[in-house]
C-alpha cells in the first residue's frame, strides 16, 4: 500500500501483572508506516492494557516499546514528548467535560504544543471539519451524541499530528446506530495512510481495513495474519472458537463498502 516501509511502532515482550493475575504475557509486534493492525480477542484478554502500555499510561512490568526508532520505555526523556506522537482514542471518549468541542481539540495544541491561540483554533476547526463536526464546534460534550463525542475525541487526537493512532474499542460504548459514523472516520484515516492499532469487536470493519489481524487471548498472541486468512481459515482452534462466538453475537454489524 505504501512505499515507505519504516517501522513506526515496535512492541517487544510486554508483560503486565495486576495483583495476582498476569494480564499480558509477552506480547510483541511491529507496525509499519501506513499499516492498520487490528487486535481482537475476548474481554479481559489484556487488549486495553496493551494499548495503555504502549503510551505508558500503564507501566509494563517487562518489555520495551519504540516509536519511530526511539525507545519509550526505560528512558530518561519525559514521556510527554512521546505521547504527543501517539494519539489515543478511548472507549469512553473521555472528552473534557468543561470545554466545548472546539476547546477539546485545541487544548492539546495550546497547552502541550504551545501553539499560538489563533493558529490552534484554526487547526482545531480544520480537524473538526475532517470528522464532519464543524457545526457542533461550540457545543459541550454533554450536548453531543455518543457518536459525535467519539468523533471529537478522534479529532482531538489527530490535531496533535501523531505518528500512530491507538484506538481502544472505539465503538463499544456506542448505540448500534451510531457505530457507523465513527467507523467511517476511522476507515477514512486508514485509506489516507495513517498508521493505526485498533482494538475492536467490529469484524466487518476489521476485515475491510486491517492489514493484519492479531488475536490475543489470556495475555498471549494466539494467532496473527492477514484478515482473509484469519477470518476464513485460522490456524488455531481457539481463534476459530472465538470468531464463531463473535459472529453469533454481533452478526454482520457493519456492511463493507
Amino acid at each position, binding site marked *: 500500500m505504501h512505499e515507505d516501509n519504516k517501522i513506526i511502532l515496535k512492541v517487544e515482550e510486554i508483560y503486565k501483572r495486576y495483583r495476582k493475575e498476569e494480564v499480558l504475557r509477552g506480547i510483541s509486534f511491529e507496525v509499519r508506516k501506513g499499516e492498520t493492525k487490528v487486535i481482537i480477542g475476548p474481554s479481559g484478554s489484556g487488549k486495553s492494557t496493551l494499548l495503555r502500555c504502549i503510551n505508558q499510561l500503564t507501566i509494563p512490568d517487562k518489555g520495551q516499546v519504540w516509536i519511530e526508532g526511539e525507545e519509550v520505555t526505560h528512558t530518561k526523556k519525559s514521556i510527554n514528548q512521546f505521547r504527543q506522537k501517539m494519539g489515543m482514542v478511548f472507549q469512553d471518549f473521555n472528552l*473534557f467535560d*468543561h470545554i466545548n468541542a472546539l476547546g477539546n481539540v485545541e487544548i492539546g495544541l495550546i497547552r502541550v504544543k504551545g501553539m499560538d491561540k489563533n493558529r490552534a483554533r484554526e487547526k482545531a476547526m480544520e480537524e473538526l471539519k475532517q470528522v464532519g463536526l464543524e457545526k457542533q464546534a461550540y457545543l459541550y460534550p454533554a450536548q453531543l451524541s455518543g457518536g459525535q463525542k467519539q468523533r471529537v475525541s478522534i479529532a482531538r487526537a489527530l490535531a496533535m499530528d501523531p505518528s500512530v493512532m491507538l484506538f481502544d474499542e472505539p465503538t463499544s460504548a456506542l448505540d448500534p446506530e451510531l457505530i457507523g459514523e465513527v467507523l467511517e472516520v476511522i476507515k477514512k484515516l486508514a485509506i489516507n495512510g495513517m498508521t493505526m492499532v485498533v482494538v475492536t469487536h467490529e469484524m466487518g470493519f476489521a476485515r475491510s481495513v486491517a492489514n493484519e489481524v492479531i488475536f490475543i487471548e489470556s495475555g498471549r498472541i494466539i494467532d496473527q495474519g492477514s484478515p482473509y486468512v484469519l477470518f476464513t481459515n485460522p490456524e488455531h482452534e481457539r481463534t476459530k472458537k472465538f470468531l464463531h462466538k463473535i459472529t453469533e453475537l454481533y452478526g454482520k454489524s457493519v456492511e463493507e463498502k
Partner: protein
Amino acid sequence: MIDLYFIQDILLPPLLEGSLITIKLIILSIPSGLILGILIAVGRVYGNKFISSLCAIYTLFFRGTPLLVQLFIIYYALPSIGIFFSPFMAAVTGFILCSGAYHSEYIRGAIQSIKIGQMMAAEALGMSRIKAVLYIILPQALRRAIPGCSNEIIYLIKYSSLAFMVTCVELTGAGKIVATRFFKYTEVFLVVGIIYLLVVSVVTKFLNILEKKLRIPGLE
C-alpha cells in the same frame, strides 16, 4: 421601648466602624482560605506520601479543634515562643488556616469525584500531571466544590465575630462594648443580628448566581 435616638446616634457609628473591620477581615481571609484549600487538596490527592500525610494531619487538626482554640493559640500562646501577632492579624491567620482546612475537604471530595478517564485523556495528549490538574481537573472540581465552599464562606462571615475574643474589635465586639456601657443588650444585638442577616443573605444570593453562571452547559 425601642430608643431610635440611641440606635441612630450612639449605636450605629461604632457599629459601622466595627463593620469595616469585619469587612477587612473577610476580604483578606476568604480568598486566601480558598487558595490554601486548593493547595492542600491538590497536595493531599496528588502529592507523594510525605506531602499527602502532612496535608492530612493539617486538615485533621484544623477541622477537629474549635476555631476559638486556634485563635487563642495564635494570639495568646505563640508569643511565649517569640511569635507575635496583632489582634487583627491573629484573627486573619486563624481564619485562613481554619477555613483552608474545610475548603480542602470539599475540594478533595470534588477532585475525587472526577472520572479517572479525564486524567487519562489529558496525559494521553502529552500533558504533564501539573498541566492536567491545572487545565482539566481543577476547572471541573472547583465547579463541583462550589456548594460546599460557598457554605464555608458563609460560615467564615459569621465566625469573623470570634475576632473579638482576641481583642480585635469588629462588628460584634463594637456592639458588645456599646451594650455593656449602656446596658441595652437586646436592642444592640438585634441590630447587630440584622446586619449579619443582611450580609449573609446578600452573599448567599451572590454565590448562588455565581454557581449558575459557572455551570457547564448540558450538565445538570
